[in-house]
């Protein structure tokens, strides 16, 4: 008479529903060929690592060579996860703002890439890549005619002087400091505290503007890399009239092919054509699309899903600095139509396990660790073959002087680590030295790397103590001289294609200080001498010296165990034309894009 207990009926219904949760994808994964073989990638990369040539006036005059099949019109959507922190060129150092700077700002010199990937420095505002005299200590640049900013005012040498001097003011703190330290020494701000706003200027012995068209730089020693340095976004021209100091970061004056229409930081940035930009004066940039619509806050996973689906608005979309999300790489490669719309190449970063030489004094311990480290599991964490490649030495494939086969520790042959060799080396080492404190960044990626490192080293007999470090201030913590750690993973990339921006900051003994990037605190007189010599030589000659320095460091000193080279793998919508991997920015080349239909 009593109805069956309603709860029992309910439980059955519920159990059925839960059962249906079992997703049906039971297809067998037999690990088909991913199409990425590191041999082919390395050959491509070798193109990237040829020395940079300095072009003359011919290479610098516009207009840039037409991109085959290019059509004007349409708006390009750009997806990015984090908002841009700065738009004031003086404050730009990171790559995302750097890409936008290519569209908005011009500078004295600029990098130019041809279809075969050869990189040369050409004049942008300047007629050529600059004339060196007085043994490379003096550099002279003459400005092109007909170069105007978005409001139509001509760019003069006074604007160039203003651009350099404002870097000395207090409100510029986030940008590069190469030019300032070369001109006025380490604490350059004292030379011009108000950045030229109060009428006081740098003396002619440092920076001279004899007339409206010419600018002369004077240095205390030879600066062969100056043209490449001035090509950095940080040194883009800021016209004196439109400089609103702190407020400039929100609404800078554009000199490039595009100008800012609206800017909601962290949400949306809309660019439109800059009518005052004259293609004939620019040998690199194009102005095909009517405008760019940057949308921020879109996670990398959503970017990948949208671009794979390629629905509606996503057809005209590209990724700014985000890449294909690691877990979805197989979906992109597996689908021919989608993998056609990708660009890939090596990033300039080399990830290495840096030893704190003040604590890990025994070379044998360092060698054992270098042999034991399992690059294969580390790369798996970055998304497998498309996330990175095993690194045999300190030079990235994008760096002139890169040697693909130089592999003193047999990393290429045994990427998952040579346990036997490592154990053999460790035989005589006392137990106390086998205890190592490994610091790792407390982010999701950092935790993955910790598992791989801990697993590899414990197998060889090390007692690994892992300490998590707050991910936001990771580099500041390990940058302290007296940090309590023995090992930590660091990554360093070149600022421009010259070994000077790799060896000097990381291994120069004279620069060991709190917060300096010499994380291994290596102080080796031989290395310091080599560095000093190479800095004065011109690029092709310096290459040999840098090679000698790297070999000495890797074999004799071993301040760090090379782990892997990072790779960039980006996807764009089906309606985007002219997509090509830019080896200088190590991202999609934003200057050549157009909308197909």
């Amino acid at each position, binding site marked *: 008479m009593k109805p069956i207990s309603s709860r029992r009926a309910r439980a059955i219904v519920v159990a059925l529903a*839960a059962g249906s949760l079992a997703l049906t994808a039971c297809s067998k994964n037999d690990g088909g060929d991913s199409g990425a073989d590191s041999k082919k990638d390395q050959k491509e990369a070798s193109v990237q690592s040829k020395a940079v040539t300095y072009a003359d006036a011919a290479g610098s005059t516009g207009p840039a060579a037409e991109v085959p099949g290019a059509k004007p019109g349409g708006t390009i959507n750009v997806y990015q996860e984090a908002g841009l922190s700065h738009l004031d060129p003086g404050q730009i150092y990171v790559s995302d703002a750097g890409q936008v700077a290519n569209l908005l700002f011009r500078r004295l010199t600029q990098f130019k890439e041809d279809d075969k990937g050869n990189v040369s420095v050409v004049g942008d505002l300047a007629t050529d890549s600059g004339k060196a005299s007085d043994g490379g200590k003096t550099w002279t640049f003459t400005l092109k005619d007909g170069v105007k900013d978005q409001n139509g005012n001509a760019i003069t040498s006074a604007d160039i002087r203003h651009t350099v001097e404002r870097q000395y003011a207090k409100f510029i703190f986030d940008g590069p400091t190469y030019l300032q330290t070369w001109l006025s020494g380490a604490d350059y701000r004292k030379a011009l505290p108000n950045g030229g706003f109060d009428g006081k200027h740098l003396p002619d012995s440092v920076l001279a503007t004899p007339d409206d068209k010419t600018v002369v730089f004077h240095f205390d020693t030879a600066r062969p890399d100056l043209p490449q340095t001035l090509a950095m976004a940080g040194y883009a021209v800021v016209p004196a009239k439109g400089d609103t100091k702190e*407020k400039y970061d929100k609404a800078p004056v554009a000199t490039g092919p595009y100008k800012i229409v609206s800017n909601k*930081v962290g949400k949306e940035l809309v660019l439109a054509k800059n009518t005052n930009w004259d293609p004939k004066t620019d040998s690199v940039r194009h102005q095909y699309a009517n405008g760019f619509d940057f949308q921020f806050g879109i*996670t990398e996973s*959503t970017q990948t899903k949208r671009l794979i*689906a390629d629905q509606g608005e996503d057809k005209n979309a590209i990724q700014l600095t985000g890449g294909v999300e690691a877990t979805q790489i197989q979906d992109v490669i597996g689908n021919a139509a989608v993998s056609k719309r990708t660009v890939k190449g090596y990033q300039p970063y080399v990830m290495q396990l840096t030893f704190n030489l003040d604590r890990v004094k025994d070379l044998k311990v360092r060698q054992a660790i270098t042999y034991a480290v399992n690059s294969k599991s580390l790369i798996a964490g970055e998304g497998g073959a498309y996330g990175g490649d095993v690194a045999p030495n300190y030079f990235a494939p994008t760096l002139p002087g890169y040697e693909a086969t130089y592999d003193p520790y047999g990393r290429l042959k045994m990427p998952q680590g040579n346990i036997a060799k490592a154990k053999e080396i460790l035989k005589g080492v006392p137990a106390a030295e086998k205890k190592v404190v490994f610091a790792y960044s407390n982010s999701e990626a950092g935790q993955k790397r910790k598992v791989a490192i801990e697993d590899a080293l414990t197998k060889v007999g090390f007692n690994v103590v892992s300490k998590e470090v707050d991910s936001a201030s990771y580099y500041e913590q390990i940058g302290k001289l007296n940090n309590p750690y023995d090992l930590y993973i660091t990554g360093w990339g070149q600022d421009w294609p010259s070994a000077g921006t790799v060896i000097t900051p990381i291994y120069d003994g004279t620069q060991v200080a709190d917060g300096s*990037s010499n994380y291994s605190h290596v102080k080796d007189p031989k290395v310091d001498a080599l560095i000093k010599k190479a800095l004065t030589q011109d690029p092709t000659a310096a290459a040999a010296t840098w090679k000698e320095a790297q070999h000495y460091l890797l074999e004799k000193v071993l301040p760090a165990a090379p782990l892997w080279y990072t790779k960039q793998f980006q996807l764009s919508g089906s309606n985007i034309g002219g997509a090509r991997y830019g080896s200088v920015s190590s991202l999609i080349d934003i200057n050549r894009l157009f909308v197909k239909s």
Partner: protein
Amino acid sequence: MFQFIIRRTVGALVTLILIGAATFFLFVAAPSDYASLACGKDCSPARLEDIRQALGLNLPIHQQFWDFMSGIVMGRDFPTGHCSAPCLGQSFYSGDMVWSTIMDRFPTTLTLTVGGAVVFVIVGIGAGMIAAYRRGTMVDKVATSVSMVLSSFQIYVLGPLVLLIFVYSTGWMDNPAYHPITDDPWKWFTGLLLPVLVMSTIFTAQYTRMARSSMIEQLAEEHVRTARAKGMSNRYVFFRYAWRGSMIPIVTVLGIDISSMLGGAVVTELTFSLQGIGRLAVDGAVHKDLPLTMGVMLFGAFFILIVNILTDIAYAYIDPRVRLS
């Protein structure tokens, strides 16, 4: 009633200031600050000092706190311009005024909250009421078991699934995004339809179960039987008498949920790549952006306190016996 509101508002203000102080000193106690983060890799002490000086981080802590809190009431001057009355300072990372950033992101969160609340109140409580009204029948069984299954799902599983079905593989709907209602109400509605439905599905389950059990309790009350004895129809008794009594526990939980949603639904926003207040809180923490974090915290706390007061007033409105102590 008026005296109650005054006393509670004063209490709320004091709590707000305490929350501000707690957030501020917690933030400062954290091992690193914005300067060390912004200083990046080659971070010489001089450069670190420049950044601190530029952002006023070198002032003593209590001075910084006083400047911030007084800024809320009197407004504040920054190098980039004056920041009018409800000024929550200038974000270190973006350089925008925190108040304008919050106001720019708030419509998204408001739409999600209001949209979600409308769905889970109507569907959730409605289903619960009907399940109680037709207790023991098939309707009751179906409603309860469906709510049971749904309540065990999580947004970051349901969200991607829904997106996969409706957006990516079929293209029926375009990517969820916020379009101001003033521009195009239809686009506003379809833009956020998916996130609202997913988020409210999980809440709906909770409210169905609660409404049902609370309604069943009320139906057993004596005064409900008296009402029926007066010849009132079952439906009338159900929605006039039993419904009111069952509202008190529901209002309590509704208050807590709504105020927390107004503080930003981080997981929903991340899953659907929406720019709401929740993401601001995450950005604030990740970028060590003190003014932004303070602004978002105070903004969220403000709603929690207001909603708590409203809940207590709702008690008095629903049940005349409850005198506002």
